């Protein structure tokens, strides 16, 4: 038996050499779940396992894989090493990366960071939704609940809006190309706003909305664009690039449609307020006018009262006596009247004088002229027999 036995050292060394000689095992990629992860003196130790086996791993660049933890599904790159002294196989790890979902997420983060640096997400580039929306372009699958939800919500709120659907795949190979094409189409078509929508799904399902093709199409789009992709908690590159992110397709439909019923109610209220407003305005002005009117009347009354008082106060000062004044005027009139009476020709005739009509001097008559003479009680006509030009003795 001893002649056919080899030493432990020889066997261990042989095993080591087998591993070291097998090129297929150099830098091989192995998929599994991390467990027992720990770092000691700058070296990371963990076990990579699946349902049926486990593999001890060691990484001498612990700081490069420090973010990984137990439970992570990873792909490790390395080479198996057999340690003769301890008789153990270790997988010497050179790099670790997340597997499956993890890889997608990593790529998502890389793309997001890259696009952010290029300015794709700048707030100042976000376009506001138009205040008047008559036509909505929807980039989505023509089948399924999403398109139906969008149509139903818009119709319920505002039946006058046109809804135009650009049919696309929303997952799988080539979907991102169709989605980008739909966005570009509506950018040059008669719509007021664009909705890009799909329902919830896994990260793989949503992958077309996390591509540079869709990001570029949205970035170049001149029309306002609403992104409604996935569940409420999903955030895609499409969401970050869009002008508005809606948590669900129904919310997107609400954002682009005014609720006509609410508007009608508000209009009725505003119409009533307008009527009440003008009445209130007139009332306010009437009150002001009445105040001014009262003030004017008060002021005028005060003015009159004061001036009347002033007059009454001063009438004695200036000897103002109405009776005396009237009496003096009457006396004056009486005097004037008596003067006038005396100057009345009738009164002169009563004194015995006669008046020869139209004869003021003897030059006015000749012998033989007929003259009319007026007495107080009548008149007669006589003929001039002679004219005496002597001075009147009277």
């Amino acid at each position, binding site marked *: 038996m001893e002649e056919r036995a080899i030493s432990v050292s020889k066997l261990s060394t042989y095993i080591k050499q087998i591993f070291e000689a097998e090129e297929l095992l150099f830098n091989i990629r192995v998929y599994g779940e991390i467990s027992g992860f720990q770092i000691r003196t700058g070296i990371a130790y963990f076990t990579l396992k699946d349902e049926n086996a486990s593999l001890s791993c060691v990484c001498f660049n612990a700081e490069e894989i420090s973010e990984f933890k137990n439970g992570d599904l990873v792909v490790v790159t390395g080479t198996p090493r057999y340690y003769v002294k301890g008789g153990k196989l270790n997988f010497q790890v050179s790099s670790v990366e997340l597997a499956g979902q993890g890889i997608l997420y990593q790529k998502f983060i890389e793309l997001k960071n890259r696009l952010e640096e290029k300015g794709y997400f700048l707030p100042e580039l976000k376009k506001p939704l*138009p*205040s*008047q929306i*008559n*036509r909505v372009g929807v980039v989505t699958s*023509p*089948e399924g609940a999403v*398109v*139906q939800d969008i*149509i139903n919500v818009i*119709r319920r709120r505002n*039946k*006058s*809006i*046109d*809804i*135009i*659907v*650009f*049919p696309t795949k929303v997952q799988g190979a080539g979907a991102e190309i169709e989605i980008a094409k739909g966005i570009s*189409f509506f950018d040059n078509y008669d719509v007021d706003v664009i909705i890009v929508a799909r329902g919830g799904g896994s990260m793989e399902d949503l992958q077309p909305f996390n591509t540079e093709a869709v990001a570029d199409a949205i970035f170049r789009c001149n029309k306002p664009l609403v992104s409604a992709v996935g569940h409420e908690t999903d955030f895609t590159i499409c969401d970050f690039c869009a002008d508005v992110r809606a948590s669900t397709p129904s919310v997107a439909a609400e954002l682009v449609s*005014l609720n*006509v019923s609410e*508007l*009608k109610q*508000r*209009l009725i209220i*505003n*119409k009533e*307020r*307008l009527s009440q*407003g*003008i009445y*209130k*305005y007139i009332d*306010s*002005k009437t009150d002001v006018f009445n105040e001014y009117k009262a003030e004017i009347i008060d002021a005028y009354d005060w003015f009159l009262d004061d001036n009347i008082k002033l007059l009454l106060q001063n009438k004695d000062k200036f000897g103002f006596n109405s009776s005396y004044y009237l009496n003096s005027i009457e006396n004056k009139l009486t005097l004037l009247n008596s003067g006038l009476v005396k100057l009345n020709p009738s009164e002169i005739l009563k004194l015995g004088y006669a008046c020869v009509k139209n004869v003021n001097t003897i030059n006015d008559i000749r012998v033989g002229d007929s003259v009319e003479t007026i007495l107080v009680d009548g008149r007669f006509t006589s003929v001039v027999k002679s004219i005496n030009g002597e001075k009147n003795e009277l």
Partner: protein
Amino acid sequence: MSYKEMEKELEKIIADLESGEVEFEKASALFQKGADLVKQMHNMLQAEKGKVAIIKNELGKITEESFNA
């Protein structure tokens, strides 16, 4: 002017009238403008039903066809 813009204008007119701080001639004009806006907005809300269509591209020719989801 969009419906929202009209509504905003109408509410401003109402606020001005309610404040009572405008001249009488202007108040009269504002009320008339408000009444005109109400009428226009009412007509806008009576608009006819819009269409639901899907884009068809047949040999480069783009058309809108009636769509029943």
